[in-house]
């Protein structure tokens, strides 16, 4: 039982990171119906900014996190302006391929400056408490609480503020809403800034939890986060949170109770079965199709 609880804690840690990245995918999808495949690599850039801030600037945890989030948010907005905006009227796949290209560019550009994996210094004093046989580290607490706090803030922003209302309106109808005086470009930029900065926060926390980072780390984590966004129902913000925790939970539990090499196999097998029974994800609704 304690073993299970211990793994549950690990699952929460991994799941909250997946959920944060999945939020970026799902927000961009909700507003542009476009999969931002560069998002996993923005997560990687976030981790590298954390590494730079911690190693060269010797900043403590909170400024590092803020710097990484701000830097990646700027990068995300710039990418949207330069690469995605001209393609809004183009076929959907060309935007997706552009996103893949941007992702590859970020990976390889980072690779030029860091050919070897880098080690991120520990920014949080590592203390461990044992409660009823379950050991909890300070890092785990910070990761889980911070992610949940960010998610609650995001949910409030989307549901309670004018900006959030504009986002939801644009995801409802992109052609009519600008006529009502909603600045489309500004809202899309804000969406990108929020989504990518959440990814950067995940990148910072991930690089603290698993301190060896390399330019290709974003690929697998990014795809997995995308899968969790789809499991929850892509375009649905609460769905992405649930999906992230489900995928994190399944991965950790499979690794804990079965040979760890079965992890991907079981996790993705379960995903396929889920998609057969709920083809639009857990919280997603099928869009009505007209002929």
């Amino acid at each position, binding site marked *: 039982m304690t073993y299970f609880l211990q793994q549950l804690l690990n699952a929460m840690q991994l799941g909250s990171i997946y959920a944060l990245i999945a939020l970026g995918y799902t927000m961009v999808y909700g507003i542009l119906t476009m999969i931002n495949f560069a998002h996993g690599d923005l997560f990687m850039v976030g981790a590298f900014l954390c590494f730079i801030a911690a190693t060269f600037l010797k900043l403590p945890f909170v400024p590092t996190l803020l710097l990484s989030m701000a830097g990646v948010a700027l990068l995300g907005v710039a990418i949207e302006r330069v690469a995605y905006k001209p393609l809004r009227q183009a076929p959907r796949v060309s935007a997706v*391929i552009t996103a893949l*290209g941007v992702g590859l560019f970020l990976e390889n550009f980072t690779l030029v400056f860091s050919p070897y994996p880098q080690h991120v210094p520990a920014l949080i004093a590592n203390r461990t408490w044992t409660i009823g046989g379950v050991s909890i580290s300070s890092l785990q607490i910070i990761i889980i609480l911070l992610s949940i706090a960010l998610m609650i803030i995001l949910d409030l922003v989307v549901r309670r503020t004018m900006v959030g209302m504009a986002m939801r309106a644009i995801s409802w109808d992109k052609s009519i809403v600008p006529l009502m005086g909603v600045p489309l470009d500004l809202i899309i930029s804000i969406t990108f800034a929020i989504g990518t900065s959440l990814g950067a926060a995940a990148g910072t926390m991930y690089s603290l939890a698993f301190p060896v980072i390399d330019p290709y780390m974003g690929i697998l984590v990014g795809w997995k986060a995308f899968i969790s966004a789809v499991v929850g129902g892509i375009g649905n913000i609460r769905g992405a949170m649930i999906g992230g925790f489900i995928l994190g939970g399944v991965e950790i539990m499979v690794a804990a109770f079965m040979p760890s090499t079965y992890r991907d196999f079981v996790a993705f097998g379960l995903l396929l079965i889920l998609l057969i029974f709920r083809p639009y994800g857990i919280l997603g609704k099928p869009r009505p199709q007209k002929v």
Partner: protein
Amino acid sequence: MPTQKPPQSNAQTPRQEGKWEQWRQRWDRIASNRRILPVLLAAGFVLSILIPRFNLVNPYIQLILMYVGINIILCTSLNLINGYMGEFSVGHAGFMAVGAYVSAVLTTMFIPTALNPWLFPLIVVVAGLATGLVGLVVAIPSFKTRGDYLAIVTLAFNMIVKSVIENIEAIGGPRGIPGIEKLTTLPWTFFWTVLAIWVIRNFVYSNFGRGVLSIREDEIASDLMSVNTRQAKLLAFTISSFFAGIAGALFAHLLQFISPRVFDIIKSTDVLIMVYLGGIGSITGSILGATIFTVLLEVLRPLGVWRMVLMPLVLVLLMLFRPRGIMGLREFRWLIPHYQLLAAHLWRKKKEATDAPAAS
């Protein structure tokens, strides 16, 4: 009198434009003279036998030629799903892995080495058939799920294949299969490439292929027009994965070493880039895209790591200025069936005839 107009205007235009026009006409003549095609194919085949025999070009270029062929097969087969059917399959490397492993296991473990060169074509076909069967795993979920959700199914498929291979100790697990005999030769690559292009082109222009196209435009509407969408999807996925398996088998016997890591998402992404570089829904585009991508990566090799930075930039710029890829939906005239060209020609004539009195 209007018949005299073209030569007059030609004389007035600057010399450069006249030259351009001349080249255009020359190109037009080549494009419409499709009887050369069998001759060219035969010449290509003979050349592909002669090149390795007498070492006409150095082995490095021969290797690149074979990779170009394999990439063309991959790219054309993926184009059937992503371009013609309009789905977004991102797990093509998974199919490739199945073909590569089936063929490699056959040649290294079951068939005596002496027989390998003779049975190689058969092995490739077996690998293709096995992969075609596996393709059903993706085809059946595609009946219900579409778009991004189907993309996830194919992505998950790719990861599952990789994970399954890693967990079977008998075929090397994560270490892969080393020491595969080099059986892929230039003539065989040429043969399979031409076969893949021919089959997929004929499929696209057949009744079933028209059904596949109608799914891309609107699935519900095509269902209402009594297109058997399930059959069309099943066929498209099976044919696509069959050729992916063949490409995998050729790839395994060219690289001589395979491991699950070779067939991960990055490989799938490469094939995707080739398809969209060339242009979706165009076989000519696939051939061009695969060739340009493969050759460009080799040409830029002296740049070292920077070529990996340059390549995506080129892709992004191309997408910004030509969102539909190099060829878009267009096709080189040799690949379009004759009756269709004729129909287009007649239609244009009829249109000119009806337009002319209206203009005068």
